[in-house]
């Protein structure tokens, strides 16, 4: 989702971008990365828009600011919504990507998207994920033409980041509100509270919606420690794939070959020499001694 697909008129002017995230901590729902960008010349007017860290704003105020910034022709924005299933999958996959890695990739994806639209980005402001200096180096290497400012609490220091945080937060809240529960047949209510693992309402919801085999509805991030603890003692699932992998691994990096790769080929001589005993075949064929042939 982004402001509009058309490249804004001011795209060729040097621009700055702010990036912030919403829903990193909660055990359920998507994680949303949002960005906002505008010409550097417009920066001074940004302050007058009263953007502040989205967490300090009331929900109605956030919605109002969001609707306003959508109308502002000098502002562009985009969001990246990361599905909880994607988070779980990446964090639990064999080659794991941790949450910081996912966050970095999402932020870089947003920058790339804006650059690809033809916007001339020269400065970027981000709230840090992990070590600020390492993050800054990683970003600078990927986008050498952009000056990066990575700092803690960027969302309260830079209005452009505050704007991005509003975009992200509103998108997440709406996504959660309008979440389509895919699991049918189970009674799923929406009283999951804030979604933070510490919230008693969230805890109760998780316990209520726990399934002994399938775990939780797909809204939940299975990779969170909270889930692991809750699912302890439930039904263990033995995966066939794991078993073959176990027997296949070991000390060497060798792969078990199949006989077919050594010229052990199916031949049809049987059908000529030996007739099928006809077990289990239709009486019609048996009585008439009709055989299946593949070669004549």
């Amino acid at each position: 989702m982004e402001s509009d697909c058309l490249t804004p008129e001011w795209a060729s002017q040097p621009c700055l971008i702010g990036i912030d995230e919403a829903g990193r901590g909660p055990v359920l729902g998507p994680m949303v990365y949002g960005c906002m960008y505008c010409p550097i010349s417009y920066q001074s007017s940004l302050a007058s828009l009263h953007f502040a860290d989205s967490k300090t704003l009331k929900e109605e105020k956030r919605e109002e600011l969001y609707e306003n910034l959508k109308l502002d022709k000098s502002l562009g924005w985009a969001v990246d919504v990361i599905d909880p299933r994607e988070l779980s999958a990446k964090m639990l996959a064999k080659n794991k990507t941790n949450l910081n890695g996912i966050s970095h990739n999402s932020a870089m994806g947003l920058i790339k998207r804006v650059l690809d639209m033809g916007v001339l980005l020269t400065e970027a402001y981000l709230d840090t994920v992990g070590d600020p200096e390492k993050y800054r180096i990683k970003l600078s290497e990927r986008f050498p033409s952009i000056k990066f400012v990575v700092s803690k609490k960027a969302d309260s220091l830079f209005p452009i980041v505050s704007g991005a945080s509003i975009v992200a937060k509103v998108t997440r809240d709406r996504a959660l509100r309008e979440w389509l529960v895919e699991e049918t047949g189970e009674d799923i209510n929406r009283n999951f509270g804030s979604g933070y693992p510490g919230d008693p309402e969230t805890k109760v919801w998780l316990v209520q919606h726990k399934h002994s085999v399938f775990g939780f509805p797909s809204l939940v991030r299975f990779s969170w420690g909270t889930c692991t603890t809750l699912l302890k003692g439930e039904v263990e699932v033995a995966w066939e794939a794991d078993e073959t992998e176990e027997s296949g691994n070991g000390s060497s990096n060798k792969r078990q070959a199949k006989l077919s790769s050594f010229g052990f080929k199916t031949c049809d001589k049987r059908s000529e020499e030996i007739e099928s005993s006809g077990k289990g075949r239709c009486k019609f064929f048996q009585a008439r001694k009709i055989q299946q042939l593949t070669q004549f």
Partner: protein
Amino acid sequence: MLELRLVQGSLLKKVLESIKDLVNDANFDCSSTGFSLQAMDSSHVALVSLLLRSEGFEHYRCDRNLSMGMNLGNMSKMLKCAGNDDIITIKADDGGDTVTFMFESPTQDKIADFEMKLMDIDSEHLGIPDAEYHSIVRMPSNEFSRICKDLSSIGDTVVISVTKEGVKFSTAGDIGTANIVLRQNTTVDKPEDAIVIEMKEPVSLSFALRYMNSFTKATPLSDTVTISLSSELPVVVEYKVAEMGYIRYYLAPKIEEEEDTNP
């Protein structure tokens, strides 16, 4: 009409024990030359080929070529009901859907008939390519069985290397490594205890011990086992069935992981 009478009934019992772990269902093919079976394991890594020539039977009658699909587990259950000294006769009618195993006690005072339902099996009959083997090792079968059992407690893969010095079986696992070297030894009292190594070229191949261990179930059939190896070919582990034929196991080696096939 099929009627095969085997005086040494225990032989058939042993044959079944040596293949039923590897293959669940298989077609037994009967022709005028003999009673045979060829089947692959479910993962298509190993193949077992059995031949019991007609001359080995006291009485062998096979009017037309017949292929009988059997569940080897069930067949083994029935054959377990035969005494070790019993004479076993296999009987089937053309076009029938059952096979009968008749067990006669040596003194002829007890006769048992077991009739088993046949099944229709889609078998892939494989052509086994002719190959020249670089190295052939003949050794006591119980020694080979012991080596496979011992190594599988350490690792899951055995590397069999044949050099001028002898044949080496080695493995590596989480707890450590193991190497067993056997040297050629023909100066023994009994010929079946000899270790004979015919090497044209040195070879070294890796195999899954899990399969090797299931092959050694054929140890009671023969005092010696012959292992034929060629680089980049499946190994052949052969047990002779006294004056009747053989049971041969083919096993595809484990090969180096190719980078580009890695997902």
